[in-house]
């Protein structure tokens, strides 16, 4: 509450939802890198610095542009599929994206009769640093995406596979108990196993939303959040019964 700066009536008005929201749609890694290049504040600042430097050096005539990587017009498709354990249907998920313009252009000036050799060197140094920054930003974006995607997949596995399977196990267990085929202790053990999985599923979802925040930070250049995700390592009690 203090972090949100709420007091008085605002405090009463704030209601937390009973459950975490659903999972957002997936984006492709390429899209993410383009997004990061477009939106990273630090990259924009470096770009402005370079422009400023060019002006201060009196460079006006751009002769050519270099791009860090040419990735224009590429299509990417992410496919995943899973068997629904309840209906036995094959569930396909497909993310298809045309790559956005993923290019950062750095103008190279005609240094002509260079007034001062130092000017050229200074500019080229700044230009290369900018290129390096762009590469690093793409790397950071990819890295954040991997964590984001990983926690997403773990959480999704719980929702689509593990929890339904756990339900099937408990339901069958109850049927077997009804038939006096197993003891009630086995039924209780299976119920416990299902609850452990539910706890692990909630933790996986929590991890994902933390990773989601970190990921958004990576796209705009704010470093990482304080609450680092536990990396999908949801608490596992009872010798792997959490699965």
């Amino acid at each position, binding site marked *: 509450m203090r972090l949100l700066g709420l007091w008085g009536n605002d405090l009463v008005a704030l209601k937390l939802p009973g459950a975490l929201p659903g999972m957002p749609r997936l984006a492709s890694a390429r899209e993410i890198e383009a997004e990061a290049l477009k939106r990273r504040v630090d990259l924009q600042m470096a770009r402005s610095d370079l422009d400023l430097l060019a002006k201060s050096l009196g460079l006006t005539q751009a002769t050519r542009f270099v791009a860090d990587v040419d990735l224009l017009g590429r299509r990417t498709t992410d496919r995943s599929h899973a068997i629904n354990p309840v209906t036995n249907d094959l569930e396909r998920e497909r993310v298809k994206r045309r790559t956005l313009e993923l290019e950062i252009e750095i103008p190279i000036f005609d240094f002509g009769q260079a007034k001062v050799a130092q000017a050229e060197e200074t500019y080229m140094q700044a230009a290369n640093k900018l290129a390096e920054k762009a590469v690093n930003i793409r790397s950071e974006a990819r890295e954040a995406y991997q964590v984001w995607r990983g926690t997403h997949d773990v959480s999704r596995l719980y929702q689509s596979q593990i929890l339904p399977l756990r339900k099937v196990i408990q339901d069958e267990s109850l049927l077997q108990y009804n*038939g*006096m085929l197993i003891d009630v202790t086995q039924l209780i053990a299976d119920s416990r196993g299902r609850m452990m999985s539910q706890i692990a599923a909630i933790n996986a979802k929590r991890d994902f939303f933390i990773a989601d925040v970190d990921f958004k930070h990576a796209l705009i250049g704010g470093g990482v959040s304080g609450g680092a995700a536990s990396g999908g390592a949801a608490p596992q009690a009872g010798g792997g019964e959490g699965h």
Partner: protein
Amino acid sequence: MDVSRRGFVGGSSLVLAGAGMVSGRTAFAAVPEAPTTKSPATQAPLVPITGPDYHPVATLNGWTLPWKMNGDWKEFHLVAEPVVREIAPGMNAYLWGYNGQSPGPTIEAVEGDKVRIYVTNKLPENTAVHWHGQRLPNGMDGVGGLNQPHIPPGKTFVYEFLLRRSGTYMYHPHSDEMVQMAMGMMGFFVVHPKDPAFRRVDRDFVFLLNAFDIEPGSYVPKVNTMLDFNMWCWNSRAFPGIDPFVVGKNDKVRIRFGNLTMTNHPIHMHGYEFKVSCTDGGWVDPAAAWDEVSIDCAVGQMRAFDFLADEPGDWAIHCHKSHHTMNAMGHSVKTYIGVDKKDLAKRIRKIAPGYMPMGSNGMGEMGSMEMPLPDNTLPMMTGFAQFGPVEMGGMFSVVKVREGLSKNDYKDPGWFKHPEGTVAYEYKGKLAAVTSSAPPDAQSAEWRVKDPRKPSLGPDGNPLPMPKGAHSNH
């Protein structure tokens, strides 16, 4: 008769291959067709229309294999193949059997007959058929590898022998025998006496005892189970799927069975005493037989007993091992008799909705509850009759003795109509206050090893002095 004819149009090359193996020895025109049935119902006895006369048997939840005369040979055709057998309504088992069912059809012939039995193997592995109890040439005895080559999949072999003795026999594989019998491959073989009047009866029932281990929710028996079976069957049927033995009043009745399970079965019939008349070793001299009400049938043995059905009614007949009159049950279920589960039940229901406490007052309640069970699973105890749940399973059926049945009527006549005043009834009068004895507690005198009224003996053999005040209050 509910038998469809299976022609050999599609399988003619297969037959020729088999025929080639015996050509030169017999000049037969064609292999007899192999009839098959999909029904697990008891079919009417097959009255002979050719050959010597005899009184045919009724195969419990089964049928007799039709034959064809070829010269003076009686020809039969068995097809070993995978089958689906209904163990009881609500449960099918994927078994191996003969001619569409497990067990296979009963083979009936007469002492002195020459039988030629074609065996076509439609299993995925070798097989061979052993004619349990028969006197025959060693090469016809059917032990794969020892007496003959195994019958490979797709091939047809021919067995030819003279039926030298009348009696009660069976057939079963002797090639991967353990697995094939655990999968339900077996059949009855009755050789009738040459003299139709010899120890003739009016109703002659036959069945085999067999056991399967079918995991609840599954269909194929576990073939490596040796003792811990969960389906105790007669002719691959379990109560309430076993047909009744329908008998007319004052009929002379014979019931014959053979044991192909892995344990013995004391078969007990209510209402009558009976005498063993025949085993797989031959007829029992009437002077050597004595009255019984249960007859134990050891593994690999056969027994036939006779009685005169002069007491009408619905008489239970069952294996007297009480867990053999149960369907699938869990041996790990703990005993809760005397345990109050009321509070616990509330808490368990929170984590396992639908949970019902069971077993605190015995297990009889299960017979009437009819709770949802895993797929393809029979309740451990089940069946209902005119007075309520029967709470049985497995090797249990009813001998229904009725007046006025026609000779060939094997239809279920329904429940017995008891004459007025012959059914146990509730006492509705006043009872003197019943003082039940208090539950024994370990401290009470009657649970002591030594009589507390007698003095203990010291090491010298003389009585020790009584301790002061001890037991004086008892």
